[in-house]
């Protein structure tokens, strides 16, 4: 199941929730040139906490988390290759994987119409 919040996609796979870029957000920020994860030492995020700081051609922005949860994995490849955030492929433009996410909070997010892929 896929939802959206804070201009990001959130996709649920089993217990994991993967947060990735939406085309609208990609369009708004332009080509990404710099990515730095905020608080790389902490393993939990609250709603609204900064996931990462990015600098793109049109924007300097902090990406805020649409959900609270425990960090499973960060997309470390973004640090050396920030333009992956501009990719159309979810396996490249994902930002963070969370677990221990409140299912109700997830269900309350805006739904995403499924297109045939």
């Amino acid at each position: 199941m896929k939802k959206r919040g804070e201009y990001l996609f959130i996709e649920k796979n089993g217990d994991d929730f993967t947060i990735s870029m939406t085309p609208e957000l990609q369009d708004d920020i332009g080509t990404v040139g710099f990515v730095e994860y905020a608080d790389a030492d902490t393993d939990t995020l609250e709603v609204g906490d900064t996931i990462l700081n990015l600098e793109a051609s049109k924007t300097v922005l902090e990406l805020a988390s649409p959900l609270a949860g425990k960090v499973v994995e960060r997309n470390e490849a973004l640090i050396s290759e920030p333009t992956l955030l501009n990719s159309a492929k979810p396996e490249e433009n994902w930002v963070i994987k969370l677990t221990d996410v409140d299912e109700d909070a997830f269900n309350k997010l805006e739904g995403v119409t499924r297109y045939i892929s």
Partner: protein
Amino acid sequence: MDQEARLDYLIDYLLEENIDTKEKMDQYERGTAQEKLALFRGLCNVRPPEPVTDQFTRVQDAFLTQWNNARTLTALNDLEAIEPQLYLWQGDITSLAVDVIVNAANSDFIGCTKANHDCIDNMIHTRAGVALRLACDAVIKAQGRREPMGKAKITKAYNLPSDYVIHTVGPYIDGRGVSLLKEKLLASSYRSCLALADEHQQKTIAFCCISTGEFNFPNGRAAEIAIQTVKAYLSDTRSALNVIFNVFKDEDLHIYRAILGMKE
């Protein structure tokens, strides 16, 4: 020293610093007092954030104090509230003698670096003095990266009649127009400034029309977001802040009057 003698001292100092500012100012004349003021302002604008001597600071502060106070200053008491805690005032934000004024900064954060550029960032930094650029530079170096949109940072106001400047980077609107994200970021700029002013126990904050100048946000929509965000913040947090919407252009004055339900 009179004002012109101060300007001469300051210009000589800035020209002799040898930090690559000279060639940027080649086209400037140095005859009349007006030309000297433009040359001094331009030199400060293009100058990198490097320390100055105590002597420079003394002369600069004396010059700026007299220059800033030569205008009519406006305090909260001079204004009439439209409704509790909300005020509208047209004029130059650098002549407001209130606790906090808001600067529309950019992500580089050290103030406008174009000589004599006619933007609010330039005017605030010029009238505050070179210490403001040094303070902003220290803030951004401590952060370790450029300033994101929708956040806020506080510094002293130095030679300005206000006590503090809160700097925020609003969203930049390009040819594709306003998006929901950009609207949200503009609201976030207003909220971040209000929260920071409250955190520092300030009583009055004056907002410029964030993002509407160089950053191309449509004036009408920006004013709606500004007023809506401020009202929501005041009622949600029960903040006691007095908020002045400072407009410069007649266009913005009409827009704010209309949204705030005032008669023309």
